[in-house]
């Protein structure tokens, strides 16, 4: 009959633990490194996004602060992310919002939606639900009747990416 020798068991478990630790250490290290980059570095923007943004701006310099975008900071499900866009505009014939565009910096297709408005709307406020493939910036642009373009950028962290948007 085999007798369990505690000192042997201890040595064995020590070896196993040490080996496991050695294997895990680099993993842990890279996980920390990843977490750090995700926290500090801006999200990578797709070339398609840059092209779309350039086309929409058409050389104009966007102004800031006229759009309120309501988007969650953290989205658990990237398939359904509620978005509300409100542009501060009197919506009169002389001064109104012509269009609101949504662009995503990390989806396979950068153009999410364009909403065309007119003074008939009375208020420039549109709601929808969007897909986010991963954590990224969502850029909302509004074209005003005087030719001005106003822009707002929101960063959303996505836990579970919208499947292959």
């Amino acid at each position: 009959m085999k007798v369990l020798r505690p000192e042997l068991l201890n040595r064995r478990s020590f070896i196993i633990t040490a080996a496991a630790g050695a294997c895990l250490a680099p993993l842990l290290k890279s996980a920390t490194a990843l977490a750090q980059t995700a926290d500090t570095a801006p999200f990578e923007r797709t070339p398609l996004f840059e092209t779309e943004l350039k086309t929409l701006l058409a050389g104009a310099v966007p102004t800031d602060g006229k759009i309120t975008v309501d988007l969650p900071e953290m989205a658990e499900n990237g398939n359904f992310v509620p978005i509300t866009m409100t542009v501060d505009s009197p919506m009169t014939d002389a001064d109104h919002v012509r269009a609101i565009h949504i662009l995503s910096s990390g989806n396979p297709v950068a153009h999410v939606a364009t909403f065309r408005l007119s003074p008939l709307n009375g208020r420039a406020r549109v709601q929808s639900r969007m897909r986010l493939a991963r954590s990224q910036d969502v850029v909302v642009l509004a074209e005003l009747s005087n030719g001005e373009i106003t822009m707002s950028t929101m960063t959303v962290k996505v836990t579970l990416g919208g499947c292959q948007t």
Partner: protein
Amino acid sequence: MASNPRIKLPDQAAIGDVIEVKTLVTHVMETGNRKDKDGVPIPRNIINKLIAKFGDVEVFHAELGPGISANPYISFQMKVPGPGVFEFAWIDDQGVKLVETAALNVV
């Protein structure tokens, strides 16, 4: 193919009020990036347009991409010009058009 359109309007509105118009339709909004279990790409089929008219006047127009969620929900605002009927048209990539009307109760 789009189905089951749902429109939500306020129960009643007065002329000059700004009302919220909520629209929802059932549609898969297939992005074209997915593959079926045999690895064959599933062709893109999304609702690419929603056009809302009040009477004969277009009051809202949306151009959608694959970044809009399945069963697209879209709401917008309208200043009530008087009594009338809304007509909503959803058009998908296959050219299928779904039309729904809703009357606005103006007091």
